[in-house]
């Protein structure tokens, strides 16, 4: 819930910086190691925007898997489904884990209050 609220604050701030408007969609990247469940995040998001000026705005979550590499075997290793083990399934040595900890706001789309970009500044 706290994360959804922070994401919404970031959206509002960004939109205000771009002349104001109504948020329609925000895209996030969530890594499998981020300790955040996308479904719950979307549920919290709906609770954050409901009843407000951005009601109905969509949160789209892109899932980012972690990559695991075993230096001893010299190859990337798949993680067994449902397992968080960070040791190589073949040789038992610790795996190098990269990525998968993303929790990022990527971009957002909104309906601008302005008629056209830069309209106010254009000579009539």
């Amino acid at each position, binding site marked *: 819930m*706290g*994360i959804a609220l*922070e*994401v919404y*604050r*970031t*959206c509002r701030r*960004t*939109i205000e910086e*771009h002349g104001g*408007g109504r948020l*329609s969609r*925000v895209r*996030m990247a969530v890594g499998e*190691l*981020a*300790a*955040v469940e996308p479904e719950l995040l979307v549920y919290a998001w709906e609770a954050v925007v409901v009843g407000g000026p951005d009601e109905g705005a969509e949160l789209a979550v892109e899932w980012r898997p972690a990559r695991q590499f075993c230096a001893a075997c010299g190859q990337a290793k798949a993680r067994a489904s449902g*397992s*968080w*083990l*960070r*040791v190589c399934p073949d040789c038992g040595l*610790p795996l190098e884990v990269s990525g998968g900890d993303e*929790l*990022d*706001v*990527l*971009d*957002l*789309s*909104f*309906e*601008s209050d*302005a*008629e*056209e*970009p830069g309209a106010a500044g254009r000579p009539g």
Partner: protein
Amino acid sequence: MKQVVTVKRHALAANEEHAELLRRRFAGSGTLAVNLISSPGSGKTTLLEATLRALRGTVSCAVIEGDVATENDADRIRALGVPAHQILTGGSCHLDARQVARALDEGGIPEVDVLFIENVGNLICPTTYDLGEDFKVVVLSVTEGDDKPVKYPAIFSRAEAAVISKADLLPHVPFDLAAVQARIRSLNPTGTILVASALSGEGIGGWTDLLRTRLAAKRRAGV
């Protein structure tokens, strides 16, 4: 008119900025900051009481307590003559960096060698919020399920140390200690695992040694 704006910002960037300020503040005062995370009832406060008694006279300490309600935990720490501030989150399940900064500014917490931040009892959300700490410690009591590390892998893989608490109860509970240690190690091959009992004193020496070593290393790095 429809516009698309690229943001590319960490979802908790605001918290990260405050955490960075805290990290600089702790570096300036040479304070080792430890973020204690566990389920409710795993014995964090009791472990802290034993720790503070063991460090008394040699390492100055202070404690920031996070709870949804009541000053009970801070009162227990103050009873030992150690400065403590209670953050009441009023329903929120974790502490954030802003709350910790406010506690330091307004809670009368002096500059100390070791600052313990006892997070709200919860193994999920506190994992995500950086408090500017030097390291996270996860506490797991032997009365909890021994599959907890694999149920909550994120915190066990991120915490530099895991303390298995209430070890005095081991003969009375079906807790497979060796299996738990293996599970934690598989999630976090380089972390430290300690087995401790605040009641019997077992393992408290190893835990305070870890704190002293980390404090000395931080001070050396700061010179």
